[in-house]
Structure formats: C-alpha cells, structure tokens
C-alpha cells in the first residue's frame, strides 16, 4: 500500500495551503486556502487536478481545515459553493466560529473597497459553514469505515490543530501551521508519540532559529514603558485576532505588576468583538489562562478602553492597538499619520510585514520619509520598534517535532523553496528520515506500513504473557572506531526478551496466516509427516 500526496498549494511557497492525500482509495484534502499575493487564477489551488471528471464528491472523502487563516480556509466557500463539493468538512470548534468572520471580512474588502467581482457571497459563506462538522481536540472521528481522524493542539492561532489520519494501517499527520513554543495566550503544540508513516509539516521558518521569547517580550515592554513614561503614545498596528490579544495580555500583566495607569485602547472594529470570542474559547488557550479563568478571565482586560477617532489628538500618553496590521491601510494608517511626526511616540510593529505596506517601508533602513500616496508624504520622526513575534515554529521546533514523532517520511510544505531544501537535507542527515519538498501540483508517493493479521496459537499467547528475558554480554563493535572506546572494551550487558521472537509465522496454502510457538512448530511438522 502506498500513500500518495498531491500538493495543490503551499508547495515550495507560502500561501493557498492545500494538500490532497490518497491512501488506499481514501482521499483527504488538508486545508483549502487562497493565496493573498495574487488576484488572478493563481490565487486558488488548481482543483481540477483532484478529479479529471470534476466529480469532487466522489473524489474526496473529506476536507480538513486546520485553522481560520485565509491561506488555509480562503478557498473553502468557493470550493463548496461554486465548485459544488458536498462532502464533509472537518475543523475545530473555534475555527468553525471564526472562519466565516474571516471569509466575510475578506469578501467585504475585495468587493466593497477594491470593487472587485465577488467570488462568493455572504449567503454562500453561510451555506458553506453548514457543511462543516466541528471536532474537539483528541476526539477520534470515524469519517468512513477505515478512515479515522483526530485533532491535536497546534498553538499558532486559536483553534489551530494538527490532524492525524489513519486509513487501514497507514498513519499520517498533517500539521497545518503550528508553534512549538507557547506565547502569552496560546499553548505549545501537543501531540502523542505516534507510529507514523508520513508527517506533512509546515516549514515557514525552515532555517531560522529564534532566540528566547522572553527576550522579545522584555524589549517590547521596555520600549513601551520607556515611551509612555516620557509621555509618548504607542501605536501597535495588529490584525484583530491573535497578536492583539497576546500583546494585550502581556501589557496587562505588566501594567498590573508595575502599577501603571496609562490607558490602553483598542480601536473599534473586530478587536473588541474578537476578545469576546477568546473569552468563550478559553479552553483553547494556554494552561495558565485555562487554570485561572474562573477567577479572572485573562481576556477581560481591566485597563483596556475603546478608542474613539476624536482621541487621536488628545494629549497624554497611551497605548493603542489599531487594525489592520502591517499598516496596510484603514484606521491604523490614519492614526499613524497623526502620531508619526512626534519623536516622543513609538510605532511597534509586531511580526512580519508584507512588501508594499507602510509597515514594510518602516522596517527597511530608510524610513524618515514615507509616501502614503503620490500626494501625501509623511515625515516620520517617531521611534520604530520591530518585534520578531511569530506564531510559527522555528527550524529548531520543526526538528524537535520530527524527532519526537520520528515518522518514516516527512513532506515539507508552506515554506520558501531554498530554505525548505536546506531543512530537507538537515532532516535527512541528522535524523535519518526520508524527506521531500514537492512543488505545487507535484505528487509524492511513499510506501506505507501494511499489517497482515494472523491467528495465534494458545501456546504462543501463553508464552507471550509470561516474562522470558535473558541477559547477554556483547561488546559493541560499532563504536570501536571512536576514541571513546576504552569504555567499550568492557562487554555491555544487554537484556533481551525473546518471547515474541519465539513465535513462528506459518503460512499454509488456503489458510490464514498463523503464529505458533517454536516448540509447537516441531510438533506440527511431525504431525504433518505423520499424516503424510
């Protein structure tokens, strides 16, 4: 039996994650994302490759969505409503709650602001969500006979999950995006030690090794504290979900400890509403928040107030979380225009900024003059603080996960080409695991475990139940070429338990395979001789 992996998106790139895995005629589509960088046909995966007959319902057993980011869920409404897929879609409860919000938000931006042709309507989003079956963490779902899936906590964003799938004896895990280090509001990825044939993992930071999260937090707090204690204003442009909550928890905690009274504002829009979601989805956050929420819900921000447009020019220090992130337009840019001109103020950019945004320009070396549009130039005098926060695991984390799971094969997706190649080499050389980094629309086929079921004799069962270990002295020859040999001159004491090895597999014509105890075998042979 083989596992066939067709990479429709996020192969040697970041965006439109979509992988179709075929095991023993079962086909699972992991993620159904869109690429934010393209506006033409390239923004969706090439779904035609799934089935030449275009009959998606018979071609796919199910769709699994790992989390609500658009590059993982963006094409779902299109796929179900426009292309007409009617099969089951699995995602976690928080993803089911938040994905329609993201899709709707995106639709609005596309249609209302940019005036593009809409790819799917609000109704279609609602229809699409009706097909979704929500799953819980570590809940095993029997999708079809012989197909089981199970979700594991992945960190990254609220509700993100890694999915385990088992078809027959073949087992695999698709990680989606995950984070191996916890942040202030989400925990670290958690999974059991499984016997996997295949692990498909993201590799956004295939070569980066990040230093301690503490150091980043310290720098952030120091910069913010310094700015507000000098009477300055701090602008933190973020997207509604995730980073805003994380940083706000961090600031709240610090404010609390240091008895600071400077106001923290959330700009109107998604953010306050998002906090309400977080409050409901407390079970998907990190341990500390889960432990203490009955006393104090960490998302009940004491110091946070709503920000009004009129407050932009109000005097006095403050901290403002404003959407959207990366200073890509909207309210955050509006505030930026007002605040950037004073050297007392601080703009803190948490995480990556896409080229073309003001955030990206600020992060580059020359940022004293920024062109908003051909008519507006801003003289940037404020301090810029860049934060290397990221909800993705770094290369060390990927290696650690691969090492922990020790699968037979690894496929890398969701990363940059040359970096993936280097990580692939590393996994192969350091862990000795076969690794692949297919490009989009390529298929990787790997063999999988196939167990033969055999009957067993009673004697063998009995012998298996009773312990039967022996000790052996053997000198380990394989280490003798090392200079550390002197310790190996002494024979090593090893313990062996032979009880399973005492079984003998007997395959007779026309009969099922059977395992008998070695002592029985002689008897059987004698019997046969006798019969003959």
């Amino acid at each position, binding site marked *: 039996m083989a596992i066939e992996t067709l990479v429709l998106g996020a192969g040697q790139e970041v965006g439109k994650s979509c992988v179709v895995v075929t095991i023993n005629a079962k086909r699972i589509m992991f993620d159904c994302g869109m690429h934010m960088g393209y506006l033409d046909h390239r923004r969706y995966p090439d779904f035609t490759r799934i089935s030449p007959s275009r009959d998606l319902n018979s071609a796919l057993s199910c769709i699994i969505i790992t989390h609500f980011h658009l590059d993982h869920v963006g094409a779902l409404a299109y796929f179900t409503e426009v292309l007409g897929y009617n099969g089951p879609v699995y995602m976690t409860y928080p993803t089911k709650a938040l994905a329609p919000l993201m899709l709707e938000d995106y639709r609005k931006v596309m249609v209302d602001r940019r005036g593009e042709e809409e790819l799917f309507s609000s109704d279609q989003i609602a229809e699409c969500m009706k097909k979704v079956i929500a799953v819980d963490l570590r809940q095993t779902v029997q999708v079809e006979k012989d197909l089981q899936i199970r979700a594991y906590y992945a960190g990254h964003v609220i509700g993100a999950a890694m999915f385990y799938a088992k078809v027959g004896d073949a087992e695999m895990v698709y990680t989606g995006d995950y984070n191996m280090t916890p942040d202030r509001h989400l925990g670290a990825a958690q999974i059991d030690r499984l016997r996997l044939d295949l692990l498909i993992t993201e590799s956004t930071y295939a070569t980066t090794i990040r230093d*301690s999260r503490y150091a980043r937090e*310290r720098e952030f707090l120091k910069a913010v504290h310094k700015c507000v204690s000098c009477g300055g204003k701090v602008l933190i442009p973020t997207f509604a979900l995730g980073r805003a909550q994380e940083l706000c928890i961090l600031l709240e*905690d610090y404010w609390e400890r240091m*008895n600071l009274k400077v106001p923290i504002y959330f700009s109107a829009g998604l953010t306050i509403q998002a906090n309400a979601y977080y409050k409901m989805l407390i079970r998907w956050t990190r341990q500390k928040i889960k432990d203490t929420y009955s006393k104090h819900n960490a998302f009940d921000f004491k110091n946070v107030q709503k920000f009004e447009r009129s407050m932009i020019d109000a005097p006095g220090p403050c901290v403002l979380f404003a959407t959207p992130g990366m200073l890509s337009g909207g309210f955050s840019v509006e505030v930026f225009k007002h605040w950037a001109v004073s050297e007392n103020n601080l703009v803190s950019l948490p995480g990556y900024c896409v080229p073309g945004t003001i955030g990206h320009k600020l992060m580059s070396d020359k940022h004293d003059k920024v062109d908003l549009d051909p008519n507006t130039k801003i003289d940037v005098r404020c301090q810029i603080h860049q934060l290397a926060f990221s909800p993705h695991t770094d290369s060390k984390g990927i290696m650690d996960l691969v*090492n*922990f799971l020790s699968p037979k094969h690894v496929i890398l997706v969701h990363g940059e080409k040359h970096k993936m190649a280097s990580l692939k080499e590393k996994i192969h050389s350091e862990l000795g695991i076969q690794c692949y980094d297919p490009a989009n629309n390529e298929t990787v086929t790997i063999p999988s475990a196939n167990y033969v079921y055999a009957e067993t004799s009673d004697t063998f069962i009995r012998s298996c139940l009773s312990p039967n270990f022996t*000790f052996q*002295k053997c000198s380990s020859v394989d280490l003798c070429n090392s200079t550390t040999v002197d310790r190996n001159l002494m024979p090593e*004491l090893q313990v062996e338990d032979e009880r399973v090895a005492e079984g003998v597999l007997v395959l007779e014509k026309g009969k099922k395979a059977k395992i008998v105890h070695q002592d029985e075998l002689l008897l059987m042979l004698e019997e046969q001789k006798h019969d003959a």
Partner: protein
Amino acid sequence: MAEQNDTSEQPLSLRTLCTMRSLLLHPSTPQHTVSSILETLARSPSHHALKLLSDAAALRPDLALSPPLLPSPQRLAVEALAISLTRLNLDDTRFASLCFGASVPVRAWMLRNAGAEFEVRHGLLLGVLLGFTKDPFPHVRASALEGLVGFCERGGESKDVGLVDACYRRAVRLLRDVDPSVRFSAVRVVASWGLMLAASNSDMKAYWSNDIFAKLCSMARDMNMKVRVEAFSGLRKMEMVSEDLLLQSLSKRVSGHGKQKETLGQRTSEQFVMLATNVAGALVHGLEDEFFEVRKSVCESLRTLTSLSSEFARKALDSLMDVLNDESEVVRLQSLETLHHMAINGRLKLLEKHLHMFLGALVDNNWDVRYTDRKILKVVKLNYLTLFKSSVDSLLGSLDSYPQDEADVFSTFSHLGRNHKKFVSLIIKDMFEEVETALEGNVEFNSARIAALLILSISAALLNADVGRIPPVMFSYAVTFLGRIYNAFSDIMDRDALLACLCEKSRSTEYSATNINPGEGEQQFPLFEGDAPNFASNEVIGSKIDSHITREQKEVANDQVEQQQSVYNEVTNLINYILAKLPDMWPRIQSGHTNEVLRSLRCLKELTTMKFDSLGSGDADALAFTLLYLRIIELLAEVWNNLLPAKGLCYQGIGKLEFKLGKLDRRVKELMSRFIGFSAEEELNVLELMLLTYTLRISKEEISCINHTLKRLSSLYLRVESILKESSALPSNFLVELGKVLSSTSINGASCSPLQFEACLKFFSLKQFVFHGPIKHVKAELSVPNIDFEHPLPFVSGLPVGIQCEITLHNILSESRLWLRMTLDDGFIQYFFLDLDCSEGSEEVRKCTFVAPFYRTAEADCLILKVCIGSECLFENVSPVQRFGGPKRELVLLCNEKQVYLSKVSKA
C-alpha cells in the same frame, strides 16, 4: 465466608473487599474470621486484595499473616507482602516467583515497591528489575524503572559496574518509549543511575556526567509536562558538566566544532559534537515552557548549574532576568531565589542591560517579589557605579510607591552601603547636598528619602575608622533619625551601639572636603566627662549631643591648628576615647543592668578591633592592652552581678562565681605584669583593680583561703601607698576605706572579717584609665619544630626526653624570671627555668633555642605535653607558692599553650 470460598476464582467485588477491610481492621474481629478472610484474599488474584492486605499489615501489626496454606503464587504474594511489610527478609525465591507469576498487577506492584521496600539480594533484585524493563506492558516497564529508582533512593549501591551501566543504557533507550509514564520513569532512572555510574569511575566521571546532562536535556521537548519537569529536576543533581555543554543548553543554535577549545582534549570535544544537538537550547525551552511547573523546575536547577561554571552563570543570568517577566508569580519568585543563591556564591554579575528587569522587580505589585529582590540587593556586589546609582534610585523610588516596605528598604540601603563603600564615597557629595538642603532649608522634605540617604551615607563608614569623604555632620543628622533608622543596622549593632558609633563619628575631623586640618589630640577627642551617651534614654540625650557636636565642630574648624598628627596620637586618642566610656558604665553595673553593659562592652570591643585594623599601622600592643582592659571590666560586671543582693548567692552560683573570680584574678595579674611602661597614675589604676579583685575574693570567704589573699592584698596595698606618696595623688575613697580595714586586721587573719571588706566595695568607683604613653606588651612565641600530630617525638619510658623549643620573647625585662611550663594530661607539671643570659637580642626582641628536658616519661604509648612560657609576678612580694625547683611566685602565661606529641619508641 463459605460462599466467597466457592467463588474465589472470580475477583472479589469492591464491596466485599470493603467489608473485609473493616472486619480486618476492627480489633475485636474473632481470629477465625480473620484467618478465613486472609485465606479468601490469598486466593484472589486482584491487586485490590494485595492493597488491602498491605493496609491490614500496616495497621494491625499484631495480625498473624503467615500461615502457609496454599502453594499457589497468589498465596505467596500475600504472604510475601505481609512479611515485607513487617520488615522481615523476603526470601529470594519467593520474590522471584511473585514477579514471574501470572498476575500482571501483582508483578507491577512488586516491581514498583521492590527497590525501596524489600531486602532481596541485590544481584537478583536488579536482575529482575532490569529484565522487566523489556516487558511488553508499558506499566510493567514503568514499574520496573520505578523499582530501580526506589533502589537508588534508598541508598542502594551496586558494585557491579556492568549492571549499573546496563540499567543506565536501558533507561536511556526507554527515553524514547511510546508511553509517557515509561518515559517519566526512564528520566528518573537516567538521573539516579547515571549519577551512580558516574561515581563508579572517577576517570569517566566527566564523560558520564556530560552524557547524563545531554540525555536529560534531550527530554526538554517531550510532549508530556511531567516528563519535562522530571528531566529538569534531574539536572539539579548534576555534580559536573563541561562548560561548553552547559553553554550549549542556553543556545538553540548548535555551535560549530571550530569553536572548541584546544584544551578540552579530543575526547570531550568529540563527545560535545555528539551531544550538542540534544542539549541545544534545552534550558531556554524549559524557561519558556507553557507550564509553570516546568519553568519553576528549570529555575531551581539553575541554582545547581550556575555553581558549576561562572561563564555559564554569566550567560544564564540573561535568561533568568527575562524570567522576571514571567506570568506566574511562583516562577518569578523562584528565579529571584535562584539569583539570590547566585549572589551568595558570587556568581551574580549584574550588567546594565539587566537593570530594567532587575530593578523593575523592586516596584512589583507583589510583596514577596519586592522582598526577594531586595534580599538580592543586600548581598550582591555591584561592579559599576552606574549600577549602584540606578539601584539606589530605584530603591528610593520603591520607597515612594510602597511606604509600607520602609523597614526592609532601609535595611537594604544599610547593606548596600556597607558592601559598596567606594561607590558611596563617590556619590556622597550629592547625597550630602540633598540632606543638607532638606534638613536646614524650610523646604518640605520627604523624610523617608532623607532617612534612606543618611543610612546609605553612614553605613559605609560605620564599621570603618576611615570615614573617607563622608561629612561628619551626616552622622549628626543620622542621630536625629535614630529611632527610624536603627533597625537597618540591627544585624550588626543595637540601638545604643549605633548611637555611640554615630556620636563618635560625628566628631571625626578626617573630612577632607571641608579642609579641616586635624588638631591636637586632646582637642579632637575631649575626654568628655558626662557627655558620653546615657545608654538608657537615647532620644532626649541624642538631641543634646547633637547640638554639642555641631558646636564642637565649629570650634575645631576655627582652631585650624596646623600640626602633623602622628599615628601614635591617633592611637592614644582612640584608646582614651574608648576607655572614657567605662566609668559611666559603673553605676549601671552597680544597679544590675549587667546585660546592657555587657552588650555595650562587646560593641566597644568590636569597635576597638575594627578601628585598630583600619588604622593600619597596627599598634598591636596598645590594642592588646585595650582589649584586655575591656575584658576585665566585662568580668568585673559579671562578677558584680553575682554579688548583687537581689540575686543572692544561690548555692549553684558559687562555683560559677569562683570561676569568674579566678578568671578576673588572672586577667588583672596579666594586665599588671604583661605590660611595661605604665606611668604612676596608670599603675595606680591597675593596682586598684587588683585590690578590688582581692577584696572581692576575701568578701566571699567561702571562696578562697582568706589568709593567703589577705597577705597579697596587704603587700599590694603597701605598694599603692608608696606610689601615692611619690605621686602626691589623692587616694580614692575605696583605697581609704580599704586602708582602714587593713590596719584594723592583723596579718595572720585571725580577726579578719569578710563583712568589713564587703563594706569597702561600696566605695569603689571605676576611674577612667587615662592612657598617656606608649606601653609595651610582654609576650612570647614558642614553637617546637618538626613535631606535630603525625610526627610525634619518640621517647623511651623512664628516660628523659629533650624537647627543642624555639622561643622569641618580646619586651622582656632583664630582671624577669621566665619558666617553661610543661603539663601532662594527668595534671603533672614540670618547670624549666629559662636563663635569659643565653638568649640573643635586645630587650625588645630576644631569640633563643632551648632543649628542655622532660623527665616523667610514663609507661604509655603516647603522651601529649602542653608547653608554655610563663613569667613570675614580680610585684607580689608575698611568701611564694613554693614548689620544688619551680617558680617562687605565681606565673603569668606569656603565650598560648603548645601541644607536643610524644610517642614511645617501639621495641622492634
């Protein structure tokens, strides 16, 4: 019961077991019921039954649990349990048969408890445990591993290195087990057995320690929280780890081979390459773990690890500082505790970049955090002035935010000042100005802040004679805050001593900043009769002193007497200053405030020593004199306490009093004969003390033989009289009264009345010893070369043995009569006269080598002889304590007793 016997093949229901349990534990259950219950249980294979039996055995030791009825393994299991719980030896074969029996729960139970509970032959026990680590059942594997841990924790040791090695390797393999509970136990075995393995071979210890460290670190990314906690707590036991591995555990990036130091040797660096990926960043991962249990465990382990390498401590500090931002209070506190531990070990090297976090904790909302942070500040050594300044500023800031912390903040300032004298002197100017403006101007001032600044300023110089650049007036200011600040110094001196110290310092004129040149000694240190602080009521007098001090300061400043001040003057002034305090204490001694006086005296002694230390030039003779004098007053105070009518002289007290009086007697004699160069006035003072001592002895007639003491007293009195005549000084009341009593008492003592002498005591008052000139300390140094405990001097019993003594004598007058005293354990004393003519050198220092014969070499394998040098008390003209061939007068010892080891020459 019959029913149960019938169904014994089926497991007993929990309900039945409960009933059985109550029956078993009830003391009045008939014996036959108990036996049938036991029988039933014995046939039941469930581990509930085992548990019940073990409970029963523990709670009812009187139960007879051993009738062997059935030979089945279950039967044996029960029996074995019962026996083991009564702490008897478990038969090896029974143990083995239980473990290999068909019941898996029994097996697991046995294995888990085997290591810690049973007295089975180690070889067998470990063999069985090791074997079962290969079991297909995860919980049996885990139990076997736990058994191994239990064995280790009980202090078990295996001599078989091969076996230890095998256990360790097996556990290392099981670190990658599928089952978390097996991994958990495997981590524990790796930590405990690994250390055993490392200890078994000192050559390989470093190698194995590194290996254990790496194996434990490799579990830092395990997905199970308990496994991670256990892995990090395992690190706590590490005794050595190579520095490069330690550093690697703080960095997620694997450092390349090229960076290896040449000196590490090939083996270590090869090992490093092998282990580095396992170790990389393990501690960082641990510190940013999702679970506080893990983070706390890492912080705790860092205590041990930072003590292994200073370079590592330096790097780990960065991480630990970041932990101060942790969301969990427990973790923040633990990291502070670890920092404190590092500070105590001198491993805490704070840098500028740490300050934001470290000092931020001073204004933390949590009291414990603030307190622990200050605890660190009290002991840490700051290396840069900027660090010191920032710390001071932050502490002052925290005082504003948390006025309730004042006491501890003050105490922190006091420690901070004492630990950083140099830095204090660098910022003293600013502090002085601030205090000055605050106290003298009419501006509203923050008194807590001023008090804190004062503490900081004075603390540096308090224990130091050299006040450096600290303006003396600061000490005067501090006096006005005494009530508020004295607690900050409670660890080194009490309120009285602090006041004394402050008063003294405020008179100091070493303040160079105002260009006051020191004047004549007398002017600087007026022998202030009456203004020495009253030790009872500080507050009122404190302010009086204050005004006095400021006035005096101005006078001195006006004087501007330019004169070189010799060290000698300084010493004289110092001694007189100290001795001047004593007469004021006398009324308090008389009124029974002994403890208070003793405390003040102790402080004075400390002060004296410190002052002399700081003077540097080291007039050791004067120091010896002052200390001895203080000691005498101390003894006098103690003796007087016993004489007070209120206390009475209870029967048990006599021995103690006699002892103290004996001590006082010896000390006073020492004062008289071990110092030369007294002026008449000085001698008179000493003689009066001596007379007082004798009078004390006589007044307690039970204590000594009056006649002898009376003779000595009379002869001394004659000497006093002659001095008085020559010096034209007026005799004290005490002397006058004593003279009257003596004249009415016949020398043979027949009509001597102790009561009369006791009456004289009332007239005694302590006069100030006014120290005038240089005095010399008579002392001797004695050494017996080449002989010590390991190289005793050989002797043949019955024959004399010669002990070679090298002697150095200081300030010995030529008329002195010196003796070498040799004392045996049994009290036998032999004297040997030292002829000064044989010695070389001047009066000041003489050197000589004698071979002193010791005659009484007894029949013993070894002897310990105590040898020392004594001088006859020449001032005593009393009929001598005649001993054959020995000194004619009492001896005053000039050096410490020296032990000489003798051992008999063996006949071989």
